């Protein structure tokens, strides 16, 4: 993961001042080495060894945390982008309340209902914890669909994020499996008959259906094993899979970054010309000195003062090649693009 340009420079400056540190990490190893050097300066050589620094220098925990939490996001990122995190936090809540509910629950066909009644009516705060778990389940499904709708309508499922869409769909299916298996556990009339019906829907699939239903029920009829099987799926198998897939989902979010909303103009890679520019015969050099906006734009993490300086520079030295002006932070648009962008509500964020 890339450090922000300003911090990178700072890290290099620290290293060159301190001769001892250079032995710890070679400057040629790139940003990660620069970061490690910075850590060594703070935690090792100068202020003695502290526990956090000791762990950090061996795990790069701060670096990983920084890469995840301070990563670049596109211009136009808004509240809709929080739906995925919201779903994940609901999952965390379900996991926590679920673990605590299991402390009172008995997955036995003869005792399950009594244990649920006891938990709800007699255990301190039992009704509240069970309520969180019950309503959280519905909320999680709702949030997943909202998150999915955001991804769909913003086109965020497209290249290179197709795999994340696929993982997301698997997560949706697994969440519904959680709903199905969890529904049986209170073991009242509604749970029981809903499970009978769900099993028979499974069974009505041709060829494999009957065997799948037998697998779910652990036999040709609903039995004592059915409840413990659903309990095992609900408690161990599916949550484990969901946790692992959420990890993969997040990994891809950090690795690939997020997309800009569709109303923010897409970025143009350096050295390329849009179709209009090709038709008008505008050279790449003339185009690259202006801002490359949209998905690849960095507008969030730069200190405001520095950004202003950069912007001022960019305006002053229009004739210079793009590499020197740090064009990605801010710069004027070509006239026709600026006119289009003027109507965009997100336009004000460019210079942040």
């Amino acid at each position, binding site marked *: 993961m890339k450090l922000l340009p300003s911090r990178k420079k700072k890290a290099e400056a620290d290293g060159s001042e301190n001769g001892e540190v250079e032995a710890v990490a070679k400057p040629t190893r790139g940003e990660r080495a620069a970061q490690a050097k910075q850590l060594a300066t703070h935690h090792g050589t100068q202020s003695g060894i502290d526990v956090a620094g000791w762990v950090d220098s061996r795990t790069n925990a701060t670096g990983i945390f920084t890469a995840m939490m301070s990563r670049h996001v596109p211009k136009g990122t808004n509240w809709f982008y929080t739906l995925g995190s919201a779903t994940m936090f609901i999952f965390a809540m379900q996991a926590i309340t679920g673990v605590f509910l299991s402390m009172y629950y008995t997955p036995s*066909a*003869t005792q399950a209902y009594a244990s649920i009644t006891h938990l709800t009516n007699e255990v301190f705060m039992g009704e509240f914890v069970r309520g969180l778990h019950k309503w959280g389940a519905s909320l999680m499904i709702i949030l997943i669909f909202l998150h999915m709708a955001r991804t769909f309508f913003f086109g965020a499922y497209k290249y290179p994020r197709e795999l994340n869409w696929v993982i997301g769909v698997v997560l949706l299916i697994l969440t519904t499996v959680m709903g199905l298996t969890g529904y049986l556990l209170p*073991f009242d009339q509604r749970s*029981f*008959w809903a499970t*009978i*019906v769900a*099993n*028979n*829907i499974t*069974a*009505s699939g*041709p*060829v494999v*259906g*009957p*065997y799948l*239903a*037998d*697998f779910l*029920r*652990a*036999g*040709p*009829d*609903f*039995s*004592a*094993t059915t*409840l413990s099987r659903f309990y095992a799926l609900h408690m161990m198998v599916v949550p484990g899979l969901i946790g692992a897939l959420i990890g993969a989902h997040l990994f891809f979010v950090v690795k690939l970054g997020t997309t800009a909303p569709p109303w923010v103009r897409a970025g143009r890679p350096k050295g390329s010309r849009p179709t209009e520019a090709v038709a008008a015969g505008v050279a790449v050099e003339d185009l690259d000195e202006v801002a490359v906006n949209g998905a690849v734009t960095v507008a969030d993490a730069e200190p405001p003062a520095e950004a202003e300086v950069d912007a001022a520079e960019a305006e002053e030295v229009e004739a210079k090649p793009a590499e020197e002006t740090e064009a990605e932070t801010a710069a004027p648009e070509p006239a026709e693009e600026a006119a289009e962008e003027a109507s965009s509500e997100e336009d004000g964020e460019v210079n942040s």
Partner: protein
Amino acid sequence: MNKNSKPGEEPRVKLPEADPRGYFEGESMTRRHVFTVASQAIGGVAAAAVVLPVVGFAVAPLFERGEERWEAVGPVEDFTDETYKQVVITETPGIGEAGKTTAYVRTGAEKYNEEPNDIIAVSTRCAHLGCPVRFVQAAQNFICPCHGGVYDFEGKRIGGPPVRPLDRFQTRVRGGQVELGPRYSVTNQLKAVRVRDPGEFTGGIWEFLYPPRPSTFPPPSN
């Protein structure tokens, strides 16, 4: 590398050129490849030694048939050919109420070309998705509360979403007592077939699309 020579010297014994590189005549694998394949094979065997028993453990119930249970529901005199008598039997012991089911029992009626000595026990498990149906005296029909399935006096479907008639239980008389045995399904002509889950058709091509499960009892001979 030839053992007899030092690096940079001509080998004392001229060995055949490896062609392709790394392979000598008659060899189909390099040493490295042999070890790679061997270690992967050993790893595979180790993984299979854990995974296969666990999977077998989980799917075993598909291949196990439970004990054949017969349960007495009352003396023969209790049942007539005019209407059904409701009885409760235990299909799965050990799980309390959840293992019980209701059946409707009558004797054979000439009206339906049945032997008078026959005992007919109709299951209340709806052939749509398994909700419990109820026999309504006034209408002489079985009616399902969930999705509106309706069956006639014999248990044949006359309305709603069910795909076949109601299941039946095998019956016998032992010492004057009517006993109910394993469940079986019937075709639309009331021909006995191996028990199906609700939602599955019986007869015709469906016999192949819903194959018999090893966990079920064979049907009684008609």
